[in-house]
């Protein structure tokens, strides 16, 4: 056969090969972006869940903790701030305020044995702790997703495809009492 045919065949194979890789990276990048969006939504879901539990908690404790006005007010104020937070950073700040206010409330509740014996209160306490853990894990997952995504679009060869797709790196959440060290996985 004419050498020109061989050259053409090789070119076609290379083009197909390149397209397949492009396909792979394209899908991968999209999936990672979706995961980031999904994990962000999850944080929101948990924050809302916690906000929903607060009125219940207030109802349960107010009969017992009549003289702790300031403590109770701090919780209510923090909750409103959270409901009105518009940016991700304001979200986190309000959330921290609420966590602090709740911690104080539960610490003060230690002085009220009747309250501590109330099953409703105990269940709410369990659920609030659980929701706060979920918020913390949701944030962790968000940061993990952003890290994977950033790694993919910043390293070779992902960065080429990312540029074509006009993808920018995302920012991770800055959490004050920051997450514990990510363990060095030697595998």
């Amino acid at each position, binding site marked *: 056969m004419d050498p020109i045919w061989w050259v053409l065949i090789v070119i076609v194979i290379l083009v197909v090969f390149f397209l397949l890789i492009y396909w792979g990276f394209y899908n991968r990048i999209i999936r990672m972006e979706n995961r980031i969006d999904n994990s962000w939504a999850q944080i929101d879901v948990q924050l809302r869940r916690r906000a929903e539990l607060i009125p219940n908690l207030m109802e349960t404790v107010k009969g017992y903790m009549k003289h702790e006005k300031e403590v109770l007010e701090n919780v209510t104020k923090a909750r409103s701030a959270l409901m009105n937070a518009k940016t991700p950073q304001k979200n986190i700040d309000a959330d921290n305020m609420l966590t602090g206010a709740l911690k104080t409330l539960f610490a003060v509740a230690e002085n009220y044995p009747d309250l501590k014996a109330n099953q409703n209160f105990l269940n709410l306490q369990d659920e609030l702790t659980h929701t706060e853990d*979920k918020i913390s*894990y949701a944030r962790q997952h968000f940061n993990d*997703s952003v890290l994977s995504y950033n790694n993919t679009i910043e390293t070779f060869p992902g960065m080429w495809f990312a540029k074509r797709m006009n993808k920018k790196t995302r920012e991770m959440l800055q959490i004050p009492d920051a997450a514990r060290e990510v363990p060095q996985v*030697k*595998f």
Partner: protein
Amino acid sequence: MLMEDHIRRNKQLTIVVCTLMAFLFLIVIFAFGYIFFHDMYIALLFGLPVALVYVLITYSFSVQTVLSAAKARPANPRNREEKLLIYKVEEMAIAAGLPTPKVYVQDSEHINAFATGKKPENAVICATTGALKKLKADELEGVIGHEMSHIANRDILIATVTIGVVGAISLIAEILFYSMFWGGAGRGRKGDGNAILMVLAMVLIILAPIFARLTYLAISRKREYLADANGARFTRNPEGLAKALAKIKSDHPTDKPKGSKTVAPLYIANPFKQINISSVWSTHPPIDERIKRLRSM
């Protein structure tokens, strides 16, 4: 390596394992058919659909099979310990970005847990009541993180499929063996030249289940290390799982372990271990090595 790379590698491994298994399967069926029918084509026509149906059925009912073999029951949210277990599973699911698996409990003094299911969407995590009683919160979290990793890595899918195939291969080998005793084979219609092939077929039948099992076990051990590592990533606390494993090692409960040996790999620690054997035949790597790796993170 990233989690994504591990998952991709797992999926590729599945294909390799499945191909290998399919190959072994075909050899066994050929041998079976040859010995019984002295005709490969009839064997294939008869054997292959039967084998496929068997694997499909074990795969479809895998979750129910495992759960009833373990005598597991759904976790009771009114019981505080079990409620906290449900909470832990939810939290790990969020850390992994997966839907929350169903939570089951096995009444047993042993400290153990397993994960099963065909996809993350219909996965199940089960822990023993012994684990709930004897482990502290961070230790239990480490264990659940490990199980969640198995689900995230699609280990449960591979484990279920390979268990089905290994089972089918062993089943055929057993049937053949028993039928030999009742003189079903070797009427020698086609003459002595085929006696050699007959012997070959028999040898293959004996070896196939062994090869299948060895492949399965080798992969299974590597996956356990991976599940430990990823679990630690979810909890950000490798020490929790390390402490739990140490407790499992020194735990000597009096009641017998439940569940069949086949599904042992789905558990976090081999429920049938008497000593810590680190041979090619064990489904889990030695506990000391696992603890060492966790503590070096």
